[in-house]
């Protein structure tokens, strides 16, 4: 019983301390921020303080996919700016109530530029941005902004389209497979772009889709890939975070692509190419603007043109003329000659979504929540 009572005293003391702490919070609230400023101000300036830049990652930097790609971008930016900046990151920040605390702590630690690399940080970042007016916030893949917060994203669908063109040429069964993660517009966009690309080189193509409802679970991704291959698909693409789909294709003697990073090594016989994201150009731009004071609120949606998206390491089995075709298309996308979302375009129920000669603008692209003709099934929870 004694032992128990001891913890009770602990508990009571804690409760009191908490209440005191909470009470104390009321009065010194205005003094809160000056104190934070004071903490970072008193340093003799022999040379300008490095700009402190922080990154909040949703996954581990060792995921070999989404977060890995962001961290590669961070490292390259650090290399570029040397001791003019100082970067730090917190990985595995869940998209729960914890995100707000982590981001607020970054701001209160004197970071002047903060990147949040997943959609789920949008609301927390907005809340923190309202509090720290002198800090600049960059939010990946979202759509809300503030006086000191802007959104950025990449046009991954451009890579998916080029991959689709190659897939259309390489398929024998005229059936493609797509291992999809969580049904957000970005993923649905990529499924459509992949299918449109394939149809541009092979009109008979159809695409089967399997959702694993996770961003990351190599086992499930492999099982989904197996199901697609058993269902007749012979070229696969995935919008999940691991290389399991490619490896499954390799095992079963089919083709697949790498996604987010170059995945050649995982399945040399199956690897047709990798659609990669390169965040470094954007991170360099944003940091440069913050250093020079030219940072302003705008929306940056970068693709092949800016060097953020590329399709690389095309496999040896891809015939030379297909390779050339892919390179040509990349060039056309880069200089704006080719627009993927061009009418006439119908969804897979036959409804027209883009009239003849119409071009889908960014608003159209952001709101894609249908499958184009040739994709089998129904968008999860689409109306």
């Amino acid at each position: 019983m004694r032992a128990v009572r001891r913890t009770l005293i602990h508990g009571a003391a804690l409760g009191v301390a908490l209440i005191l702490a909470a009470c104390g919070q009321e009065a010194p609230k205005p003094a809160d921020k000056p104190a934070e400023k004071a903490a970072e101000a008193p340093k003799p300036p022999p040379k300008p303080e490095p700009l402190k830049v922080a990154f909040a990652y949703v996954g581990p930097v060792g995921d070999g996919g989404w977060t890995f790609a962001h961290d590669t971008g961070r490292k390259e930016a650090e290399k570029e700016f040397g001791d003019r900046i100082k970067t730090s990151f917190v990985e595995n920040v869940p998209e729960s109530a914890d995100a707000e605390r982590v981001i607020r702590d970054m701001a209160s630690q004197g970071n002047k530029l903060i990147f949040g690399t997943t959609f789920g940080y949008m609301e927390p970042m907005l809340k923190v941005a309202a509090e720290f007016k002198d800090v600049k916030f960059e939010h990946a893949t979202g759509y809300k902004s503030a006086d000191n917060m802007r959104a950025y994203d990449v046009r991954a669908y451009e890579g998916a389209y080029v991959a689709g063109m190659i897939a259309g040429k390489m398929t024998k069964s005229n059936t493609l497979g797509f291992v999809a993660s969580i049904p957000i517009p970005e993923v649905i966009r990529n499924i459509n772009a992949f299918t449109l690309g394939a149809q541009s080189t092979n009109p008979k193509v159809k695409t089967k889709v399997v959702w694993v409802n996770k961003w990351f679970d190599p086992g499930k991704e492999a099982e989904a890939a197996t199901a697609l291959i058993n269902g007749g698909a012979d070229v696969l693409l995935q919008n999940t975070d691991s290389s399991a789909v490619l490896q499954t294709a390799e095992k079963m003697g089919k083709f697949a692509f790498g996604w987010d990073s170059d995945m050649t090594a995982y399945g040399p016989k199956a690897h047709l190419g990798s659609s990669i994201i390169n965040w470094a150009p954007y991170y360099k731009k944003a940091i440069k603007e913050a250093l020079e004071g030219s940072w302003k609120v705008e929306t940056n949606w970068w693709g092949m043109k800016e060097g953020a998206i590329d399709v690389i390491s095309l496999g040896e089995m891809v015939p030379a003329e297909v390779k050339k075709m892919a390179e040509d298309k990349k060039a056309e996308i880069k200089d704006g000659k080719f627009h993927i979302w061009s009418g006439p375009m119908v969804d897979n129920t036959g409804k027209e979504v883009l009239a003849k000669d119409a071009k889908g603008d960014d608003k159209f692209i952001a709101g894609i929540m249908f499958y184009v003709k040739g994709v089998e099934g129904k968008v999860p929870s689409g109306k």
Partner: protein
Amino acid sequence: MEQLAALIAATLSAGTPLLLAGIGLLVNERSGVLNLGAEGMMLIAAAAGFAVGFHTGNPVAGLAAGALAGVLFSLIFSALAIGLATNQYATGLALTLFGAGLSAFAGLAYVGKSVPFKSTFEVPGLSALPFLGTAFFKLHPMVYLALALTGLVAWVLARTRAGLVIRAVGESPESAHAIGYPVRLIRVGAVAFGGACCGLAGAYLSLVYTPLWVEGMVAGRGWIALALTTFATWRPWRIALGAYLFGSVTMIQFALQAEGVEIASQLLSMLPYIATIVVLALISRNPAFIRLNMPASLGKPFHP
């Protein structure tokens, strides 16, 4: 038909890690010890197995290293939960936390690496059979090994003296102790066997099933394996049944999606879990069925 054969093959592959881990945990639990650290042990073993497989280029060495890592990790659990009689639930959970962290840290150097192992197998003579060949005879040797292990465990537990002793220790450690059996040593052994099997399962994931290492790649399979022991009412062959049932429902829901069935994928993804509950409820209706098998001292610490 060919599609059905492929589905069976995929189910057997998907169920194998669950079966391996489940059969080990079964022996573990039959001795009266509940180790919720299965997920952590599998992660450590997946990392260790991949590292050794990567450096030696030998998948067998990798699998062995995974099993060894599982044993070593299980010893931490034994030292605390058996040696110091700490709470088994909390110790196991702490071990899972520890294992997840340690594997992520130690495995950092292996992210993005791959192991070029042979990935197709055939049982000579039988793999050419129509239907049966595709369904049963083109699988990784570990699939057959897992089944053989299940048979071995079933035999040892039911028919041998060693099995009797393990069960006695799980039923009534006090009596076993009174007769003169070293209860705690036997439990350490059973937990180590559980660790070895979880280790094999983890290494199977990182070397065979999806030959890569990324942190968190076990993705909850340790928990499913733990649930399977209950599902199986602590009987070896029912573990195999449960593992393949779970695997088959998983594969079937993916196959349904691939065929364009218009049910929300999240609802389809619930199927393996719901199916497990339903089957459990059906088989548990006869109370004698469970009570006869559940080790009476499961989860309770013993000190002589």
